[in-house]
């Protein structure tokens, strides 16, 4: 037809194929197929983009995004001058997934050598069926690097911290220590756990193929390092107290001892030493006795060191004066069916001499004029029978029975420190009423930045001054503790010697103590010393504890640069100082 008669050029548009009538279903079929595949594509993208998007996004992110923990370190503990007492330094722990750790004999040998461990122990650990075993904790970073270089399968490392105590056994009881998890277990480490502890932060980052961080994504949670704690402790005075105490315990063949030095103006604890002690850096063979912070957690019957409180109350109530005469002859006093006696019978003594010579009869006679409630209130006001609120772990309150249950003989014995128990810390704190103007100072473990500190008034300034004079007599020639003297300084203090209670009975063992302060013209330091069971022949507080007081006080005053308030020569003491009776 196209080639028809016209002979015109061929027209494709008029192709005869197009003229063929195709069945209509074929074109519809194609259209439907195309539409159908579009539908599938849309469906798939809905599935991927909307239904399954979270899962896929997460999978994608896990290819490049990493959550990193930013470690925070535990705070330092320093003394008042900033010298480090406890510090954390990073270490590594080496752990393994035993199922993955298929080591060749040579590899395990290398590992054992690097860890300095027995190959047998190592093999046993790696053979365990647990999912996770620590091979060794607190490995030094150098060793950890060497192990990492071995590229062992199934062996991993974690960062952790180790705590070091450069001053070691010297400050062990006050600073305490932390466990392997860097958590405080004892002492200041436990008491200030909340401030010391660091809080790790976290961040998410994008990492490239080489493991380099490309950028931060999301928000960063900054780590919070633990706060540093600055203690009131003065490490020089601490060393003095510790070494003198150690020496004295050895010389007197004693079982234990404790010493406390307090700043009389601020109530700061400048030193706290105990013997026996331990090395906090190596705590392998520790016994409870070594761990005990005796000065704070152990109570004892203080003995004569309580007499000044009796005298102060007597002065305060106006019942006696400094020079009131008390007849202490014949050195015995019977109350009910019990008899109180003095080591040396004295005749008539003034109140001041009762303290100076440490007369039990004199103290009991003063106490007999008080109502039990008055006396209880005074003991309570100076802090006996209650904890000193230092926040120290294991702090004890001592024993002060309710006054309603007191019998007259008990009131009499309490006047010279029996039938009542206190800790050395409480005793030292109580003496702050005499060192200051009759105020009981609050104690502080940490450095006090803002002065001046005010205490709770217990006695009048006049009473405190008079008792101070009595205590100076007690520490002078003619007193019970001439050995407490410090050349160049006026010191005051009181000895105590008490039988130990064992199973409710007084045993033939003693606790010797001395509590005092210096310089008397303007007291700066309160020093308390306690020696438990001296057994080298001497047991009087004046012979055992007073020399320790003298050595610590002398050294501490010099260290602090406090001007001497007396001449440099010690007034010669009599050969036989009066003994106190137990």
């Amino acid at each position, binding site marked *: 037809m196209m080639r028809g008669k016209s002979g015109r050029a061929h027209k494709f548009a008029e192709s005869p194929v197009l003229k063929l009538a195709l069945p209509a279903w074929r074109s519809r079929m194609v259209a439907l197929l195309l539409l159908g595949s579009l539908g599938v594509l849309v469906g798939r993208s809905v599935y991927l983009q909307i239904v399954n998007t979270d899962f896929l996004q997460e999978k994608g992110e896990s290819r490049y995004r990493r959550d990193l923990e930013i470690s925070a370190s535990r705070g330092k503990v320093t003394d008042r001058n900033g010298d480090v007492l406890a510090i*954390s330094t990073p270490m590594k722990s080496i752990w393994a997934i035993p199922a993955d750790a298929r080591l060749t004999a040579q590899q395990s040998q290398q590992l054992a050598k690097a860890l300095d461990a027995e190959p047998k122990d190592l093999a046993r650990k790696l053979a365990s069926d647990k999912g996770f075993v620590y091979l060794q904790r607190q490995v030094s970073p150098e060793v950890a690097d060497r192990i990492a270089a071995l590229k062992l399968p199934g062996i991993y490392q974690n960062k952790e911290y180790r705590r070091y105590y450069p001053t070691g056994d010297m400050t062990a009881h006050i600073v305490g220590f932390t466990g392997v998890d860097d958590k405080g277990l004892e002492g200041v480490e436990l008491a200030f756990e909340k401030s010391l502890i660091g809080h790790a932060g976290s961040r998410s980052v994008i990492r490239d193929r080489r493991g380099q961080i490309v950028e931060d994504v999301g928000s960063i949670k900054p780590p919070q390092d633990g706060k540093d704690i600055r203690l009131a402790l003065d490490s020089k005075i601490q060393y003095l107290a510790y070494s003198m105490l150690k020496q004295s315990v050895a010389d007197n063949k004693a079982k234990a001892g404790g010493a406390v030095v307090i700043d009389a103006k601020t109530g700061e604890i400048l030193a706290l030493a105990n013997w026996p002690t331990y090395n906090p850096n190596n705590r392998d063979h520790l016994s409870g006795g070594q761990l005990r912070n005796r000065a704070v957690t152990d109570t004892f019957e203080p003995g004569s060191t309580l007499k000044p409180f009796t005298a102060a109350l007597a002065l305060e109530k106006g019942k006696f004066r400094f020079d009131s005469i008390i007849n202490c002859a014949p050195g015995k006093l019977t109350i009910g069916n019990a008899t109180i006696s003095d080591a040396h019978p004295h005749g008539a003594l003034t109140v001041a001499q009762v303290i100076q010579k440490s007369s039990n009869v004199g103290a009991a006679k003063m106490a007999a004029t008080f109502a039990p409630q008055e006396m209880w209130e005074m003991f309570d006001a100076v802090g006996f029978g209650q904890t000193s609120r230092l926040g120290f772990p294991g702090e004890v309150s001592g024993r002060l029975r309710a006054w309603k249950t007191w019998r007259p003989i008990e009131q009499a014995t309490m006047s010279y420190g029996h039938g009542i128990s206190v800790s050395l810390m409480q005793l030292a704190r109580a003496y702050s009423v005499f060192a200051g103007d009759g105020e009981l100072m609050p104690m502080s473990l940490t450095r006090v930045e803002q002065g001046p500190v005010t205490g709770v008034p217990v006695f009048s300034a006049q009473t405190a001054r008079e008792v101070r004079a009595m205590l100076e007599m007690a520490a002078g020639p003619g007193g019970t503790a001439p050995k407490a003297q410090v050349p*160049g300084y006026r010191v005051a203090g009181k000895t105590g010697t008490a039988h130990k209670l064992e199973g409710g009975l007084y045993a033939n063992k003693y606790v010797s103590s001395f509590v005092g302060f210096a310089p008397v013209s303007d007291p700066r330091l309160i020093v308390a010393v306690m020696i438990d069971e001296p057994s080298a022949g001497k047991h009087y507080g004046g012979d055992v504890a007073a020399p320790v007081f003298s050595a610590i006080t002398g050294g501490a005053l010099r260290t602090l640069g406090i001007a001497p308030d007396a001449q440099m020569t010690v007034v010669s003491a009599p050969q036989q100082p009066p003994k106190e009776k137990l």
Partner: protein
Amino acid sequence: MLRTNMVFLFFVVFCALGVVTSQHKARKLFQELEAEQERAKQLDVEFGQLQLELSTWATHPRIEKIAKERLKMRAPETARLLVAKPVEGAQ
């Protein structure tokens, strides 16, 4: 019309290259920052270790031992001490 489009195209390409360069620079700087922060952390750790070492060397028992044994020092007897008192009113 074509010319305007070409100008826009050049502009867009220029911007795109700018973005690439600045992103690259930012990443470089970020890595430097990372490295410096890492160094700061390491120095901090080292400082801690040095502090530890310092206080280990400076413990009082060691100082006393050296003073007494090596340097033969001792506390003067009290008879040989003189106390200098500051003059009243002086600083």
